[in-house]
Every structure is written in structure tokens, then in C-alpha cells.
């Protein structure tokens, strides 16, 4: 049985290694400064050009937008659950539905954001902020759960010491509890960001696709990295008929692999930094 159980683990490693190997092998060739710093504007056919600058801008804006919405809401909700709710009916309902919310399909979050903004702006609106709202639906529960776990780790003695010194509760929460847990909360937020940064389906619905650079998240479509990968994939192979023009038949796939590699690198770096933060800055309060 030991062999069988170890084999299960080995089998799980196969797709991981295979996938990473392929993405690195096929993506590394195109991943250069030119690729990172140029958009797809004016790129057509099998041209040996084009990059992901516009997609990176879009991903940064949409993800930052999602974080701006979900971090305050998530942390405050976690504070409510730990410091104020204390097993009340509302707190139990919130805990339950936060857990349920982690299971919302991402495309449903996209549909929700689309519907929400079509209420105000009419159908068919596409801009970065809608995508941020869609992603925040997916991100809030993750932030709440991780923050809640961290706040629960803060020893009660710290709170009581603050109360004994006459510090009001809100100041205790902000200056003592949050400050003690800040490393863990940062880790949780970064893991949440790394989870939503690769979301494709909701952004496809809400932010749309574009080949040019757009810095304004409140007007006009934006490209994002995951959507870029999908877009290049659907573009498929290019027929090269004219021998006088430089033409790479697999150019779209090459760009897709390079963008996928960029995306994986971003996610991995976020993950690594998050774990480093929790390891380096964790308060020394092992109970």
C-alpha cells in the first residue's frame, strides 16, 4: 500500500511538471523586453511583432481595482466576525455564506458584474472597473477567511491589556489586533490577489478585448493577461502564402505561451513573496 499511496503522489506531479516544462520551454523564446513593452496595435497576420504591454497594464488596473474594493470590505468583515459578531446569528450566517461564496463560479461573478453595470449604464458597457467588481466578488471571501484566521490567532491578553490601559475598542482593534496580525493578513491578501490575477472568464465578459493600450479603467475596453492568452489561442495558426513577407505560422501560439509564462511567473512571485512575508514578519507568539 505504501507503493500505491506514493504512486498517487507521483501521478499528481506528472501534470505539474509536464505543464510547467511546456510553458517554460515554449514561452521563454518570446519573453523578452520587446514583448513586455509593446502592445498588439497594428500587428496583423504572421508579423514577428506584438507584445503584452497593454495586457499587463489592464491586469494591473483590474487587479488593483479588485484589491481596493475587497481588501477593506474583507478585513472589516473579518473584524466583525472575530471582534463583534462572536457567534451571533448574523456572524454565523456571514461565516456560512462566505464559505459558500468561495464556490461561486467565476463566470457567474462576471455575469453579475455585467448585470449590475447594465442597470446603470445600459447593456454592453465594457471597462476595467466592471472587471474589478467581478473579481472582487471572487476575492472578498478569500480575504475574509484568511484575515479571520489571523485575527483569531491574536492572543486575548493583548486585547485585555489594551482595555486595561483605557484604550477604546476601535483603537485596540486597529492599533493592537490588526498590527499584530498584519503579516498574516498581508499574506492572505497576496494569495487572494494571486488567485484572481489568473481569472479569465469574468474579464472576458466585462472588460472585453482590445489591441491598444488603455490606461483608463473607467472608460473603454482593456486587455488583460489571461484574456490575452485566450485571444491569441483562438487566433490560431496563420496561413503564410507570401514568401516575400516575414511570416511565422505559429506566431499566435508563441505569443500565447509567452504570455502564459508571464502570468505563471506573476502568480508564482506573488505566492513566494506572500509566504516570505508570513515567515519573516510573523509575530513571535506561539502559544
Amino acid at each position, binding site marked *: 500500500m505504501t507503493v500505491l499511496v506514493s504512486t498517487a503522489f507521483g501521478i499528481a506531479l506528472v501534470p505539474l511538471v509536464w505543464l510547467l516544462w511546456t510553458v517554460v520551454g515554449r514561452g521563454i523564446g518570446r519573453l523578452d523586453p520587446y514583448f513586455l513593452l509593446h502592445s498588439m496595435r497594428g500587428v496583423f497576420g504572421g508579423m514577428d511583432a506584438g507584445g503584452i504591454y497593454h495586457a499587463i497594464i489592464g491586469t494591473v488596473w483590474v487587479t488593483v481595482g479588485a484589491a481596493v474594493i475587497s481588501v477593506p470590505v474583507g478585513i472589516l468583515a473579518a473584524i466583525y466576525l472575530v471582534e463583534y459578531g462572536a457567534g451571533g446569528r448574523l456572524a454565523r450566517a456571514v461565516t456560512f455564506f462566505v464559505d459558500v461564496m468561495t464556490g*461561486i463560479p467565476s463566470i457567474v461573478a462576471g455575469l453579475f458584474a455585467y448585470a449590475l453595470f447594465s442597470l446603470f449604464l445600459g447593456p454592453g458597457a465594457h471597462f476595467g472597473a466592471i472587471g474589478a467588481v467581478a473579481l472582487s466578488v471572487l476575492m472578498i471571501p478569500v480575504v475574509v477567511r484568511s484575515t479571520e484566521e489571523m485575527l483569531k490567532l491574536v492572543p486575548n491578553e493583548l486585547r485585555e491589556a489594551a482595555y486595561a490601559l483605557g484604550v477604546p475598542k476601535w483603537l485596540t482593534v486597529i492599533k493592537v489586533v490588526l498590527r499584530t496580525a498584519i503579516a498574516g493578513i498581508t499574506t492572505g491578501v497576496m494569495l487572494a490577489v494571486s488567485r484572481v490575477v489568473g481569472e479569465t472568464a469574468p474579464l472576458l465578459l466585462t472588460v472585453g478585448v482590445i489591441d491598444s493600450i488603455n490606461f483608463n479603467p473607467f472608460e473603454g475596453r482593456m486587455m488583460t493577461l489571461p484574456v490575452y492568452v485566450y485571444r491569441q489561442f483562438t487566433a490560431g495558426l496563420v496561413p503564410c502564402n507570401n514568401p516575400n513577407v516575414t511570416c511565422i505560422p505559429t506566431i499566435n501560439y508563441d505569443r500565447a505561451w509567452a504570455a502564459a509564462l508571464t502570468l505563471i511567473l506573476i502568480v508564482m512571485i506573488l505566492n513566494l513573496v506572500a509566504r516570505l512575508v508570513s515567515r519573516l514578519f510573523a509575530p513571535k507568539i506561539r502559544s
Partner: protein
Amino acid sequence: MTTTAADTRAPSPAPSNGPDRPRPPRRRTRAADRGFNRAFRYLATSAGTLILIALAAVAGFLLWQSWPALTSSGSEIASKVSFFQGQSSLASYLGPLIFGTLLAAAVALAVATPLAIGIALFTSHYAPRRLASLLGWVIDLLAAIPSVVYGLWGALVLAPTIQPVWQWVSNVLGWIPLFKGPAADPARVLLTVSLVLAVMILPIITAVSREVFLQTPKLHEEAALALGATRWEMIRTAVLPFGRSGVVSAAMLGLGRALGETMAVVMILSPGLTYSFALLLAGKQQTIAANIALKYPEANSLGMSTLMATGLALFVITMVVNMASRWVVGRRKEFSGAN
């Protein structure tokens, strides 16, 4: 668990002297709850409430947007929506989609669950303690890879590579309706999709199962070992019975994820709208989420409403699955896909 500031500060001056005395302590309780204190409490409470409102809003908006499609007849939709051609009613359009969604997720679950249990047991009871957390982290890496990358890999690498395998499966097991051949080439079929979905849901099932297995009472394990059980017998008699409900709940969490997965399905599967169990034939099934992503660009307002209706169905299905799994696990301990 937390004592409020009011509790610690108000020494409660004996509310016992007659009926007119109990007032002061109550006022002092309130006195601490004002200004910033009260504002902050309201802020935190409203953030918690906002989450409930958001969830209700998701359901509400989907219902509101899908209302035109829900209330109009099938022929009316068919006359206006291009991708609805040949359908007699919304139910006849939705039926195959729900079927495809459930089939893909069920096959993925059937592949992933035994594997996940094995991995969870490996990290909790077989691997050296020091290695265990590292191995857990490696499995978590699978969850960190974005779904669109899985889709890219599945469509461009896995599908061509696995086609001979599917061909062989259909030759050997072709008498089972599930594996009816000849296997499509390229292998943009439901079985490939389910395999990728299985890889994607493996981390969550593993993580939750591992937590449950680690919680097996040490005394149970030691008692089994003391009675002469081998390590596997100990796991079979002590760990697995203890962890059964946890594993069920973990599998349901994974099922919820697999149901809602979009990009991997969109990029790999060659879609079709039939009630077919043939996993190796192309153009037979489609899932709700993938259908929305594919049809969305060509949808007019009634088409969008139709897609919203399918999205509502997907939302309801995943909510039911998730709530059931939370209910199962809620009787045990606090677990979540988010930590």
C-alpha cells in the same frame, strides 16, 4: 471569546438596590459605545452585512436579467437568438448543458477523488514530517496555475499527446457506452476536459482531506497499531472511518469547482448539445460556463438574457453543492477552500 471594552471598564455598581438602580450600568454600557467606537462597530457590521447583500444581489441580478428569457416562449427566443435555432423551449436548450456540466464534473471527480485521498494519506501518514509541508506546497502549486494556462496546455499539448491513449481505450473498452469509439482526433473530447478538470480540483480535495486525516485521534491510531495492525490496516480501521465525512465534503467542494470551470472547457472541448454519454466522441457535450463564454460575443439582448438564465441555473447548482458540502463539514470543524 472577546470581552468588550464596556465589560472590562464598567465595574457594574451592584444593580441590586431596588427597581430604580439597574439603570446606571446600562447607561455606562452604552456610554462606551459611542463616537468612534460605535462608528467602527457599525462599519465592521455593515461590511459583514455587505457580503450577505452581495450574495443576494448575485442571485437577484441574474434572475432580473434572465427574466425576459424565462417569460418568453421558446419560438419567440428562437426567432431572435441565433444560437437558439432549433430549440423548442428554454428547458430543451438548458437540459443538455446541465447534463454536460454534470457529466464533465462527475468524471473529473471520479478521477480526482481516489488520487487526492492517496496524496492526502501520503502527506499526512507516509511522508516524513519535514517533507510533508513541502509536498503539500507542491500540490498547492497546481491550484496556483491559472485556468487559462491549463486550457492552453490541454488543447495544444495534452489533447494531441493523449489521442493514441484514447484510441486504445476505445478499442479495448469500446463496448462500454462511455468509451464508444472511434476516439476523435484531435482529442478535443469530454474525457480530456475531465482529466484537466481533475488536475485542477485535485489541490482543494487534497488539502481538505489532509486536514481531516491529520485530526484523527492519536489514541485511535496507536490502539490500532498496538493490536498489531500494519500501517495500512491502521489507516483503514482508524483514519479512513474517521475522515469519511470530511472526504465527502472535500469531494463536493471539488465538484463545485469543476462545475463552474470555464476556460479549460472552452479551449479544449469541441461542443455539441446532446444527451450523450460518449466521452471520446467530439461535438457531443457542452457545459454551461463554457457555453456562456462562447456565445456571449454574438448575443443580442434576448440572447444575453438566455445566457443569464443558464448562468442562473449554474449558480443554483453550485450553491446547492457548496451548501451541502459546508453542511457536511460544518458538523465537524472549520474548513474552507479559502485558507
